[in-house]
């Protein structure tokens, strides 16, 4: 290997508001860095080719695929995972709606789904269901059929915008 290239890289970044400094393998992607090096197992590695969305986390204010981002690239970055946004309470209402409306079953997609949905929460107007579906189109859920997830996001965004909140659906007899 030629001289300027190194297989391990020092990075200094913020994760969930805390300063972290580590040497990482250049081949380490962000999700393995979070899970294996920092013990933050809330973010999930699914397909590891950018398709499933289970690894979605927030970097510098926008959502990214954790599996398609190398930790080495994140020197100086500001990373937030589901642990961090749970602790700050930023998405507590969204999480409550996920529970109330059965928007998760196995839970594998849920952290990525929450981070993706969180981007819609601070919009000025409540997004249409079609817009919600388009926004979460990069996040696979193999349990719910998405309907309950869209319900939960719709209800949360409606509440934050001061719009009428759709009623909970009654369980079938």
């Amino acid at each position, binding site marked *: 290997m030629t001289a300027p290239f190194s297989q391990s890289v020092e990075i200094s970044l913020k994760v969930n508001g805390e300063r972290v400094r580590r040497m990482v393998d250049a*081949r380490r992607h962000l999700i393995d860095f979070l899970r294996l090096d920092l013990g933050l197992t809330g973010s999930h590695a699914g397909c590891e080719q950018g398709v499933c969305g289970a690894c979605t986390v927030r970097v510098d204010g*926008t959502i990214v*695929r954790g599996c*398609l*981002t190398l930790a080495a690239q994140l020197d100086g970055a500001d990373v937030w995972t589901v642990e961090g946004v749970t602790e700050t309470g930023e998405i507590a209402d969204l999480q409550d709606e996920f529970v109330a409306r059965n928007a998760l079953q196995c839970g594998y997609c849920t952290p990525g789904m929450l981070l993706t949905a969180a981007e819609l929460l601070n919009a000025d107007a409540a997004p249409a269901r079609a817009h919600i579906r388009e926004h979460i*189109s*990069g996040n696979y859920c193999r349990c719910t059929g998405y309907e309950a997830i869209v319900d939960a996001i719709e209800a949360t965004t409606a509440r934050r915008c001061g719009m009428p909140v759709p009623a909970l659906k009654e369980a079938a007899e």
Partner: protein
Amino acid sequence: MKPSPIGYVRATSLAHALDLLAEGDGEEKVLAGGQSLVASLNLRLIESPNLIDINGLDELRGIGVEGDVVRIGALTRHCELMASDVVARHVPILREAAPLIAHAAIRTRGTIGGSIANADPAAELPACVVALDATIVLASKAGGERRVKAAEFFLGLFETDRRDDELLIAIEVPTIKPGERQSIRELVRRSGDYALAGLALAGPADAPRLVFFGVGDAPVVAGNAMAVLAGGGSIDEAALALEGDLDPADDINGSAGYKKHISRVLLKRALSVDRQFEAA
């Protein structure tokens, strides 16, 4: 899967990046948004590469308009194309194309330069820049800047005219003029998928340049159909002429005949319905 061991270096300036490419053995990979490259690393389609990370190069960012040319820095992310007033006003096809690329969490990282240098034949932006008659700006330590017309840049499957020591630094796109139109249409099974077939068109409203994607090894300029339109032929005649332009392969997404069929449908829809992106 996990990548094999990687060599990594963070370029600190454009000159540094060009030095690294000049001194390399031609096997270095430039890491821009990484949305195709890191997936390829994870799948070990690329083994033990040396990566030159250009994400810190602010000189490759930004969208500016000078005269009748919009210059888009190579590191411009897809989400920035979507948010740019300059793009919406002067190159509306790129504003329309960006949301078709993958998903929100990928558009925040993926870059226009990366998409064009990667030359995926099913990607939207390579077809757009060919339809726009854009110029690809490359830089190297030895040769300075080199400009290549988009139509000559794409040579084949993931193959371009970029030399090993060159970095793609910007795209220069002519602004839309009165009497011109721009539009992109594609057919996907699910939002964000690569297109089964797609069409980017730009140019004079009655006879735009027609560039198909997802139906060949590179963006396909539909010269026969364009000639029909330029000669005053009807939309149906142009659609029939596509038979001489397109030669897609059968693959898991559909037969060649199916892809040709939907290409004709996209052409008819684009020419007969899409008038909303004409210049004012």
